[in-house]
């Protein structure tokens, strides 16, 4: 099963097995990782699942849709490598993916 690493602002590192086909957001929610809120349950409507994708992985993830990009521009402190984690589908090719979590989703 692919492993996704979530690094929180306080330095906590969680290496989580996430089922292929599930989302990076769901992996965090399932494992009660503070830092991902996911109010809308993954429908790209709330931007509270914001994460920063590690540079090494940015190009390996399918690009964001226009809707996601619009939402991302309005999150707290958006960066070049910002993504909404509910829109990142985990696959075997993404085994080893590393994401950093923002200090706050609000």
């Amino acid at each position, binding site marked *: 099963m692919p492993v996704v690493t979530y690094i929180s602002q306080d330095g906590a590192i969680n290496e989580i097995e996430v089922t292929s086909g599930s989302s990076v957001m769901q992996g965090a*929610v*399932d*494992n*009660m990782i*503070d830092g991902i809120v996911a*109010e*809308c*349950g993954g*429908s*790209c*409507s*709330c*931007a509270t699942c914001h994460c920063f994708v590690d540079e090494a992985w940015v190009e390996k993830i399918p690009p964001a849709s226009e*809707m996601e990009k*619009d*939402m991302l*521009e*309005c*999150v707290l402190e958006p960066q070049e490598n910002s993504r909404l984690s509910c829109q990142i589908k985990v696959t075997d090719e993404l085994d080893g993916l590393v994401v950093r979590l923002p200090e706050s989703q609000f």
Partner: protein
Amino acid sequence: MTKSCCVIIGASHAGGQLAVSLRQEGWDQKILVIGDEPYLPYNRPPLSKTFLSGEKHVEDLLIRPEAQYEKVDIDFMLGQEVSRIDRTNNLVILDNDTDISYSSLALTTGARVRKLDLPGADLKGVLYLRDISNAEQIQPYIAPGKKAVIVGGGYIGLETAAMLRKLGLEVTVLETADRVLNRVTAPEMSAFYTRIHEEEGVRIVTGAGVTGFAGYNRVREVLCGDSDPFPADLVIIGVGVIPNTELAEEAGLDVDNGICVDGQCRTSDPDIVAAGDCTNHYNAFYQCRLRLESVQNAMDQARVAAATLCGKSNAYNALPWFWSDQYDLKLQIAGLSNGYDEVVLRGDPGAGRKFSAFYFKNDQVIAVDAVNSPQEFMVGKQIISKSLAVDKVMLEDTSVPIKSLLTNA
């Protein structure tokens, strides 16, 4: 000595979140969540969208899988009704007469559909949509060419209409008021949604008061007084919900359009909290008490309630927000528009599928309805929650980026 136990009555969005938040807040005693459905907490919004279409299945709807609750020792009793609460003895009495002792109690009982008590309402094919079993009852009726009549032009009605139309049914929406979404939006929004649905081939009939259902064994027509009846193979009624307050009321707690709670989600008994669709609470933005039917309210109140049970004192003061997906339209709503005195439109609701409506009261933005306009939604939330002043001319001008209204405020 009995080990401390927090019992949570209700296992949907609020109940599930409350249990998880208790652990996150440091509650290390037993947690038992009792739900009357046979499912772990699941996402309700997809029921009128991707679950109805069969794109998602029950396992996909679960907010968290069973294994995750086991990891953190959250216990569930599912498919179990509660008969009453004995506050004197700190007991929850189940409908099989078993008693469960609690040291802390949370009520997250949600709401149930308002039913239409009309002739023919018990015919096969006259259905509601609130939970998985409802959706599973609807699914066998879905086939291209079948006639579906949706009673109620609110969000549930319109979302269901959109999904059934996508699946090839002939769809008619019957709304008693003079426009759809009349309780919650401005006329411009109602007109927009009517236009889109009609473009997609749905028939919208307003001023239509349903008086009954006709058929032999299964429904064949929806009756509207003296008007021509509407042929139907399937009827879905979506005319609102009623908060499940009976347990609270019978236990002597204050109830008034929901279980009354304070800013920390405490009921009139300070040892009992409540969260979600079932509560009536004070909203500081709008300075009134209200009851909200939304995922956001359920989750945010659940977090506050859990903190309260752990001896903390967070206040619930989140800005209400809501979303609805129909066809290729993403509607995101920030705030509550009741009582508005002016609407400023950004974009044209008469053409295309992207625009937003900013609701003002005394020149302050109190709510935003954003259709396929996520930036207007996100910026709108900031404007409302920070009571920022907004230049209406700039707002109306779509060549001005919406984010610049934040820097100019």
